[in-house]
């Protein structure tokens, strides 16, 4: 409960900047939090994920960075920028205009927005949202006014700058204006091996006929705890493509809510996770079909090694009386070790008859015939396993609409698998 109690001192400190935030809503969030407490494993959506780490480490709320940034921060920032993208940089949840580069004719950024954005998320997770509300000090509103010629990278950097473990609470809302197209990468990265807790709230309004392709790339420090809420409200005839990549963090928890508020929306919700050591990744998705003639396709793939654990829970809601809904869900897990754990749970809440809905979940080991095929081409067994593992996840990456991002993330996957496996040089029979 440390994390809630630090609020009072935080409040005293931060009220020196009264203009930056809505203190009454923070006070309210604190009261609600004290009342409900944090989720426990008795709550259905938290059955497989423990918040014990919050009582083990004293995470201090992040505050504004000094004007003069240490070189280590600057070099981390530049190493994480994707060439060929516009970039908005956030450091510990605070916008860094000086490090950002983008075209002001297409992207509008407003700091300290007080625009209310409300999503009906998972009730059991409300206190996690309140926690973000407590500590976010720099809510941002981003508007995509015109088609983006290049992807927009929103670089969420965490750096402790020699200090204590931090809780980072970014909050942003992105609007893609009617008929406009945007490819956005949320890069969630941090200082090598640092211990911190990121708890972000990212909401997206995709207006009529707009097209959003969003990559949520979680490649945090291996000692980090990463939580995020991604809420996407899609209007009629829009297209939403969401890619979730989980490459690093000690513990990850995603809550994704997609509201299909109009007809003829095409949506794809895709995930690729490479989990190793004792990493734990929990993805909760909620796809809500409120109007007819919409498609939602979900494919979540996880490659698990060592003692990693993966949780996937996909809820699809189809409202009463709506027609021509097409919804598919698939969760595939490839196991590289006998000690991994997979929890997969589809929840279909269907109140309409005119529906095509499918779901499936698979779990398996690598095929010996595939390994042999690669070996017969001179590729060593361990390299073959690495390539096949990359291939398994890369199928998701290859669905990206941008060649630049396809290349970037294919490489990132391969590097990740290569370095991980090289250090272990382990061969699975």
């Amino acid at each position, binding site marked *: 409960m440390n994390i809630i109690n630090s609020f009072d001192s935080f409040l005293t400190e931060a009220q020196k900047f009264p203009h930056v935030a809505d203190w009454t809503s923070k006070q309210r969030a604190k009261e609600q939090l004290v009342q409900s407490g944090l989720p426990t494993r008795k709550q259905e959506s938290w059955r497989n994920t423990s918040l014990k780490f919050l009582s083990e480490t004293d995470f201090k709320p992040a505050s504004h960075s000094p004007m003069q940034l240490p070189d280590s921060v600057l070099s981390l920032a530049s190493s994480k920028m994707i060439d060929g993208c516009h970039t908005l940089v956030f450091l510990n949840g605070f916008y860094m205009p000086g490090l950002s580069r983008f075209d002001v004719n297409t992207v509008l950024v407003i700091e300290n927005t007080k625009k209310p954005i409300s999503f009906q998320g998972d009730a059991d997770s409300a206190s996690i949202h309140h926690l973000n509300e407590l500590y976010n000090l720099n809510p941002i509103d981003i508007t995509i006014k015109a088609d983006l010629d290049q992807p927009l990278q929103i670089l969420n950097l965490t750096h402790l700058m020699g200090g204590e473990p931090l809780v980072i609470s970014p909050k942003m809302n992105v609007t893609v204006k009617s008929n406009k197209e945007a490819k956005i990468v949320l890069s969630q990265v941090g200082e090598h091996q640092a211990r911190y807790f990121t708890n972000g709230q990212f909401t997206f309004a995709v207006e009529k006929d707009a097209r959003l392709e969003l990559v949520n790339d979680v490649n945090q420090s291996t000692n980090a705890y990463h939580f995020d809420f991604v809420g996407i409200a899609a209007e009629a005839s829009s297209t939403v493509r969401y890619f979730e990549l989980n490459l690093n963090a000690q513990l990850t928890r995603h809550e994704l809510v997609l509201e299909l508020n109009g007809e003829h929306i095409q949506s794809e919700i895709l995930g690729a996770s490479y989990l190793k050591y004792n990493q734990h990744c929990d993805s909760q998705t909620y796809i809500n079909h409120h109007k007819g003639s919409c498609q939602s396709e979900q494919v979540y793939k996880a490659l698990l090694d060592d003692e990693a654990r993966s949780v996937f829970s996909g809820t699809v809601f189809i409202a009463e009386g709506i027609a021509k809904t097409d919804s598919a869900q698939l969760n595939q897990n490839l196991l590289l070790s006998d000690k991994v754990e997979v929890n997969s749970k589809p929840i279909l809440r269907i109140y309409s008859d005119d529906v095509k809905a499918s779901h499936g979940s698979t779990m398996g080991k690598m095929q010996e015939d595939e390994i042999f095929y690669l*070996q017969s081409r001179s590729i060593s067994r361990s390299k073959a396993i690495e390539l096949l593992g990359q291939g*398994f996840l890369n199928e998701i990456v*290859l669905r990206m609409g941008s060649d630049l991002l396809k290349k970037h993330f294919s490489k990132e996957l391969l590097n990740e698998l290569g370095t991980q496996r090289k250090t272990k040089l382990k061969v699975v029979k």
Partner: protein
Amino acid sequence: MLEIKNLKAEVDGKEILKGLNLRVNAGEVHAIMGPNGSGKSSLSKVIAGHPSYSVTGGEILYDINFQPKNIADMDPDERAKEGIFLAFQYPVEVPGVTNFNFLMTSFNSILEHQGSEPLTEDEFRKYLDKKMDIISLRPDFLERGVNSGFSGGEKKKNEILQMAVLAPRLSILDETDSGLDIDALKVVSEGVNKIKSKNNAIVLITHYQRLLDYIKPDFIHVLYQGRIVKTGGPELALELEKNGYDGFLQ
């Protein structure tokens, strides 16, 4: 280059090869024919080192550094690095791994084994372009997942592309002709003929004479119930085409 002596091998406890003998020298083309289920693909997999098969008797001698060596205990990738290549009867689909990445990883593994510097992406692309011409594959094949969604014929072509890139000493082509249309058979055969030299050897596994019209074999073997039961010159294939296997198999 290859000498197989009294080879016995089993899979899942079932004996498939039952004392097989075969000798292949550099510069030669051999064809192996035989009824379905006689053990032709099994022989090719045993030579390449498939882990499901265990060798229970005999030897597979293959020249490494000009010395015959029994390769029965070598890993498949070690054999491949020494120049053994198997074009699969049923090439495996590897979605997500691009053909380009696959070919480059494979080629560089061999260079590394030979103690040479690996090629960079650009260097390899140049080398690959020339090989692509040999069997006229469209460039976009390189960016697709290995064999993933390829038609039957495209998969076979892809196997020969790999052969062209890796330049093996001993190539075993397991029914590469089946599934190819008439034009593709010609293109692929011409490709194989271009790769063929006095330093390498080719073993063709086939059911049909037509392939042998394009790639002229020096020897024809009939494999039946896990053994080579007859060996002859090119005329044997014509004879088989006319009379079927019944004649020999009493």
